[in-house]
């Protein structure tokens, strides 16, 4: 029982971060119908920026993450601006473009920070909370609260603000949206910026849990992407659920299947999307070519 609960707690701690990564994938997908393959690398840039500002720049940790969100938001805007001429023309080239940006960002990180990476001390010094022998990292609690807050804010923005509703309209029917005066390009740019901002949030938060290096985006990106798919690609609550599900699955597989855990996780993932290709909240509304 103790092992079960402790494993669950560990899975949720990492699952919250996967959820943030998955949300970044989903916001871009639901708006543009595009998978941003550079997303994992943006997470890495976010982790580096946040950790550099908090360690070398001596900024308080939340402020460092805010700086990272602004920096990666700009990166998102740049990616969107470069790809914009292809919007509605060549979708495959846009996809390949995002892959290219991922490689560029990784190379840039090596140029700026070197290839070796660095460890980030935990910003929360408090000892783990002990509930009946189950130990919960205080930092994991912070991560879960921040992830939940980000989700609520994003949902409010998409459903309650004019800009957010306009973005949904542009996603559903870009031509009709243009006809009623919605700037589709701007809506895409905002989606990219928000996606990149979420990436920075995820990267900044996971920095102290892992080791920040130029290649850290690879596996985080793949797991976040898989989480988004499992939740129902493009669906925000789905991304949260998918992220948590993936974190928990990962955690339990590690205990049960030891060295084969990675294999088992992705086999389960493959079977799950074979049974339900549209994911948990499956509505693949966006399909633009």
């Amino acid at each position, binding site marked *: 029982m*103790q092992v079960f609960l402790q494993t669950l707690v*560990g899975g949720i701690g990492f699952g919250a971060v996967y959820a943030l990564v998955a949300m970044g994938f989903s916001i871009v997908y639901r708006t543009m119908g595009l998978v941003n393959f550079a997303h994992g690398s943006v997470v890495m840039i976010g982790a580096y920026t946040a950790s550099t500002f908090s360690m070398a720049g001596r900024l308080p940790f939340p402020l460092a993450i805010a700086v990272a969100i602004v920096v990666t938001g700009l990166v998102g805007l740049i990616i969107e601006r470069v790809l914009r001429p292809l919007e509605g023309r060549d979708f495959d080239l846009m996809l390949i473009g995002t892959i290219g940006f991922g490689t560029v960002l990784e190379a840039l990180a090596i140029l700026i920070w070197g290839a*070796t990476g660095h460890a980030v001390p935990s910003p929360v010094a408090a000892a783990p909370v002990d509930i009946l022998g189950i*130990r919960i990292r205080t930092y994991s609690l912070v991560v879960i609260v921040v992830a939940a807050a980000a989700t609520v804010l994003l949902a409010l923005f998409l459903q309650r603000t004019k800009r957010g509703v306009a973005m949904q309209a542009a996603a559903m029917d870009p031509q009709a949206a243009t006809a009623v005066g919605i700037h589709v390009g701007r809506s895409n740019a905002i989606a990219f910026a928000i996606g990149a901002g979420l990436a920075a949030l995820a990267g900044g938060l996971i920095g102290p849990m892992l*080791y920040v290096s130029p290649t850290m985006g690879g596996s985080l990106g793949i797991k976040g992407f898989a989480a988004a798919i499992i939740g129902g690609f493009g669906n925000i609550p789905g991304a949260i659920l998918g992220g948590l599900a993936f974190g928990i699955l*990962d955690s339990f597989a590690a205990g049960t299947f030891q*060295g084969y855990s990675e294999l088992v996780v992705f086999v389960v993932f493959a079977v799950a999307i074979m049974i339900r290709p549209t994911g948990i909240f499956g509505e693949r509304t966006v399909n633009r070519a």
Partner: protein
Amino acid sequence: MSPHKPHRRSHRVWAATAACLALGVLAACSAPGDTGGGASDTGPIKIANVNAQSGQLSSLGQWETKGVKLAIEEVNKAGGINGRTIQLDVLDDQGDPTVGTNLARKIASEGYVAMLGTAESAVTLAMAPILKDAKIPNITSGQSPKLAALKSPFLFLNAPTSVTYDETLAKYLVDTKGYKKIAMISNNGTYGTGEHDAFKASLQTRNVTPLADEVVTPDQKDFSANLTAIRQQDPEVLFIGAEEVESGLIVKQARELGVKAVIAGGAPLGTPVYVTTAGADNAEGSVVSSPYLGNDVNDATKAFAAAYKAAYNEEAELHGAKAYDGAKILLEALKKTGGAGGQALADAIRGVGRNGLLGQFAYDDSGVGVHATQIGLIKAGGLVAEPTS
């Protein structure tokens, strides 16, 4: 567009391929460099250094490369070998065996007399057959027992294998300290598997059965399940068989989960990357089995550390030291052969009895040169020798 055009182009491609093949054959012929091959007797002597310069294993690769460069520069400053300078080319394998095999073919075809590296046993294992066929000696920084098991006459290790590391560690933990409740966690990569098998075998010869034997993947991030299972056994010692970063993450999470056991492991636990990833408080007291316990051991290590500091403005550590030893052995052997490679160079390397930074080198036929390690402890974030009682 004439229909002949593609035809003509394919002719040109064939011609180019044939030319490349011819060049490749020529280079392969001259690589052993006994007497004839004109190009290999004049001009710089080409040595390849293959190490990860990018990717998760790049910290390791860069330390190794720094050690190698230091040794080569010393020889070049002193006039090279028989008046010929050493040309050191650093090739990035990204810690990836597939990239490694491509590099091995490049090394075999471009007239390199020897290769130094890699720091990753898996990459070295992948490259070894190609280098053996091309008769190019390789002094690796890998330490998997599988490397020694190959018994390739062209493969040499610049450090002890995991068997030696873990035998020394088990002897200290069980025989000296009297610990019996020992848990293990290791990854299923080449290094982790080697550590797992070697340490477990050393425990078995002492009639100790590990309380837990958890296996993780090299890319794993969350160890809650594995560490909780270990915590329930309440071990006195937790043995870790994983690379620097993963070892650090395991120890950090183990302490957060309330595992109080003494942490023990091989060389990765002696590095600053491990200490900063785990956090200095969590790493405090870790028991490290290593052939290089620091820069103040003797005059040779002090001189090496000073030169390293002058060249790179950072503190020297084990990986730079063993790569330096390996490069020095190669250079000494090259001096004996007068710059020639092939079988003669391999035999010369086997004959070098260097009293190095890691200890006394005496190569056996499995390519292992150093046969002992020492025990160190992490104290206040640094590695210090455990006073022998």
